[in-house]
């Protein structure tokens, strides 16, 4: 049995406050695995283990101040912590030697050996090309089309396969070059990332992107990416993309970045690519505080190690009360769970309810619906919401707490939550403000068809500004929709019903449609929330003002 001591955290960092313990008694830990989250005066850091073994006892508590060299766990099995020197381990970097050997310019082998999809590069060598990473945690799919033949000469970036995943049909580009000697997969086959797909005769170094990625970056990239909302739950914002920033290997040199040398050094020490840090100063100048805020954002925005927030408390044994079974979550389910938890946890929600009299709208809708062309109420709502977003720009924004900024968008893209047999997806209608109600109606029909046939692309599920969730087809009087982060509001539509409404001294039957608007209270005040939904209701109430063709 041995003790695991807090390793060196980087220059001048001698202690920190434990913000999270990522392992528990009985866990088998691996070298490089994150074991603690520590807040230092520089930033929140994840501390990787320098040894392997089984945790016998946790010697520290959340909130405690620990010093470098202090015993944090009692370990059994694996490599004795005593023999492993507490090396200078920079945050999240596993460096077995005291003296790091940054990737030498020409050493491609080293980079490749760390890369799951590495391939030999000897001239004329035949190697297996593996299915490259498809992005956004897509691990597997079904081959729907093979776009190359034996004898083809592959170029990097050329599309080689069409794969249907549970999110969308993807075209897979080649990450290598060479002559296709044999095709190892068949149409309709289920394949996994990393599985051999072709035999290639190559004479060039393949995987150029791999050698460009510092060794070790791959591991760090994954947990970060998990937080970005993926297609399943719509809108992968470009702004969220840089969240792949904390790198383990040598960072690239950034020319032309407005940051002082001391700021660039701090970023380098923290493993942050200075090119990704938004600058708050004049001319985009990046300050020390910008780097710290960015680092903190990266560390806190991440789900507490691979979505463990969802399983943080131990579950009871449900079989005690009758039979129960466990089923793996589908990818769409996992994404939805992660994305909505993140939205629910990070956005202070308020939901405002209202009812709109759509008696007149219903008349208009029926009058323009033909026998073979049915127009639903949804295009009308989308059109009115698009107008409302122009009138209330804070509803067409995103909140960046890291930089204390609000991002206002000049475009209006509205997502529509669609219930499919594989779960919830949110395709986005782009630039709806420039579409007529009839165009929106047509586009909605096409979108629904694509969703039904699993043809919805990932691009189609990105870039939303606002989401509408219409459950009216099923029923219900109101509900509290969860905002589709990084958007700031969502409109829930329930089922319309005839109600007696007191008009001019009489109760008159009117068709009333209940609406529920959830908004981000950080950026939208209560009065504005009420004004927004009132504006939408009044616009829908006076359909004569709506021109369906414009």
């Amino acid at each position: 049995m041995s003790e695991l001591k807090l390793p060196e955290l980087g220059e001048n960092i001698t202690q920190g406050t434990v913000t999270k313990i990522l392992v528990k008694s009985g866990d088998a830990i691996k070298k490089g695995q994150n074991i603690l989250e520590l807040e230092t005066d520089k930033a929140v850091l994840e501390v990787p283990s320098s040894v392997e073994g089984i945790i016998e006892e946790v010697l520290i508590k959340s909130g405690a101040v620990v010093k470098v060299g202090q015993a944090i766990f009692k370990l059994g099995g694996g490599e004795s912590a005593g023999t492993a020197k507490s090396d200078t381990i920079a945050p999240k970097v596993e460096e077995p030697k005291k003296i790091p050997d940054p990737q030498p310019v020409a050493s491609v082998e080293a980079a490749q050996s760390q890369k799951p999809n590495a391939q030999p590069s000897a001239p004329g060598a035949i190697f297996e090309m593996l299915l490259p990473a498809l992005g956004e945690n897509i691990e597997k799919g079904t081959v729907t089309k093979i776009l190359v033949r034996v004898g083809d000469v592959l170029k990097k970036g050329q599309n080689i396969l069409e794969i249907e995943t549970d999110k969308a049909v993807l075209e897979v580009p080649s990450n290598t070059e060479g002559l296709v000697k044999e095709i190892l997969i068949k149409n309709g086959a289920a394949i996994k990332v990393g599985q051999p797909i072709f035999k290639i005769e190559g004479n060039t170094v393949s995987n150029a992107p791999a050698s460009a990625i510092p060794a070790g970056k791959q591991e760090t990239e994954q947990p970060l990416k998990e937080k970005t909302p993926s297609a399943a739950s719509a809108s992968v914002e470009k702004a969220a993309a840089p969240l792949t920033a904390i790198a383990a290997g040598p960072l690239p040199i950034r020319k032309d970045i407005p940051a002082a040398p001391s700021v660039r050094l701090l970023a380098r020490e923290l493993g942050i690519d200075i090119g990704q840090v938004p600058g708050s100063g004049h001319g985009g100048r990046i300050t020390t505080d910008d780097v710290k805020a960015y680092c903190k954002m990266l560390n806190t925005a991440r789900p507490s190690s691979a979505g463990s927030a969802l399983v943080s408390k131990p579950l009871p044994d449900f079989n005690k009360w009758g039979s129960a079974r466990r089923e793996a979550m589908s990818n769409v389910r996992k994404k939805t769970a992660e994305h909505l938890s993140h939205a629910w946890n990070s956005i202070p929600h308020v939901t405002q309810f209202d009812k709109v009299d759509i008696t007149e709208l219903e008349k208009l809708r029926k009058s323009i619906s033909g026998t073979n062309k049915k127009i639903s109420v949804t295009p009308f709502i989308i059109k009115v919401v698009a107008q409302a977003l122009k009138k209330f720009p804070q509803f067409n924004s995103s909140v960046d707490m890291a930089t204390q900024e609000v991002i206002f968008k000049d475009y209006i893209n509205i997502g529509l939550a669609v219930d499919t047999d594989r779960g919830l997806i949110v395709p986005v209608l782009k630039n709806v403000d420039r579409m007529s109600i009839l165009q929106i109606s047509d586009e909605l029909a096409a979108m629904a068809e694509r969703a039904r046939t699993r043809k919805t692309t990932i691009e189609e599920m990105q870039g939303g500004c606002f989401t509408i969730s219409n459950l009216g087809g099923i029923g219900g009087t109101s509900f509290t929709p969860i905002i589709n982060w990084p958007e700031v509001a969502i409109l829930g539509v329930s089922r319309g019903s005839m109600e007696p409404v007191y008009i001019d001294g009489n109760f008159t039957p009117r068709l009333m449609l209940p609406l529920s608007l959830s908004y981000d209270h950080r950026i939208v005040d209560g009065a504005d929330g009420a004004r927004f939904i009132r504006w939408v209701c009044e616009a829908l109430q006076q359909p004569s003002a709506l021109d369906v063709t414009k």
Partner: protein
Amino acid sequence: MSTSLPLVVIGAGPGGYAAAFLAADLGMEVAIIEKEPNPGGVCLYRGCIPSKAFLHAAKIISEAKHAKAFGIEYNEPKIDINKLRDWKKSVVSKLTGGLGQLARARKIKYIQGEASFINSNTLKIKKTDGSVEELSFQKAILATGSRPSVIPNLPQSPDIWDSTAALDMENIPGTLLVVGGGYIGMELGTVYHEIGSKVSVVEMTPGLLPGADRDLADVLYKHVKGLFNKIMLETKVIKMETSSNGITVTFADKEGKEFKEEYNKVLVSIGRRPNSENLGLENTKVKITPRGFVEINDQRQTADPSIFAIGDIAGDPMLAHKASHEGRVAVETIAGLKVAFEPQAIPAVVFTDPEISWCGLTEIDAARAGREVSVAKFPWAASGRALTLDRTDGLTKLIIDPKTQRILGMGIVGVGAGDMIAEGVMAIEMGAVAQDLKLSIHPHPTLSETIMETAESFFGHSTHIYRPKKMN
């Protein structure tokens, strides 16, 4: 030989000694291998320092002559070349001796000799005392510098100098041809002009100081055109032959017309080449580019993980201050720190009269990269300080990003330009915008005010220049 030394630095120029000193300060056991008895390298022995000593002497002569213009007249100076040379030597030995003391104080093992690699972790050292020893090491820093490039097939003659011979200053030639209008040729040409030689310059390209922005180089050209005997641009040297009074040189002008002139001495200053040969690098994994530079990464590590390279051998620009900075990056990397060589601006200074300096982006760079920039200029005719020096032949300019207004580059020509460029480096490294320079109070009356006024002129309202408003 049995124990392996943590760090050995090969070559003790400004890169090598800075690296070794820092390594010692960080607690590493370190050795220096160097031919000379003390650290210093080309810069201190045969480059920056001796040339600047001579240029100081030249400046005094030139200013004394110039004083006639405002009523102060001196007799022709008497030049004791032996005393001048001795003074230069004393400057060099004071500096190099001081570095030797600093090395000893840091307990650095100083091995006088020449090293070559047996493999990636062993060196063979031919010591100056004749003995040979092997040294095994964990990390090595290559800092062997560069030497003057030579023109092939020249006659063997003591009348053909390289920069080293020119700095030895054996005598003052009656006539001197400088081959190459780069900074070394222009600096040494200035020295010999002032101590009495008739100096001519021949340059292949259409202008002096290729690489510097033309508006800066033009100011220098105008000044030296009146002083030097002849400046031949777009002219090639075809042949050199020894003759009764020195060297007869055959030129070809841009039309290809050939002509001959005779000079007492010819100084060949056509550039420098890295010292990457005869080091046994073929016994390591180090890779060398076709131009002879050692390939390195951002940490100055070569393709051989145990060997780093810094300074002239590691690539352009071949400047002492770049080498020192690289030395510190290499040592800090070896010490396990996360650093990289990532300057936003490396200053360059030409110590001619007038001086030229620049840093960051030049107009030439911007044009080559197709990058849109705004250029703000301030001619020194509007500077009070320049007038009091009777040297209004100067120009300060800023290269500015038109979108963010960030300072991307600075260029200065004029007396004292070398000392002023540091402000530009600071502005660029700190990500300053034009307004920062405009709003920082600069002391009056100094030449540094021209920087502030250049920034003001970017906004269209420099105090000392009136620009009529555009009418439209």
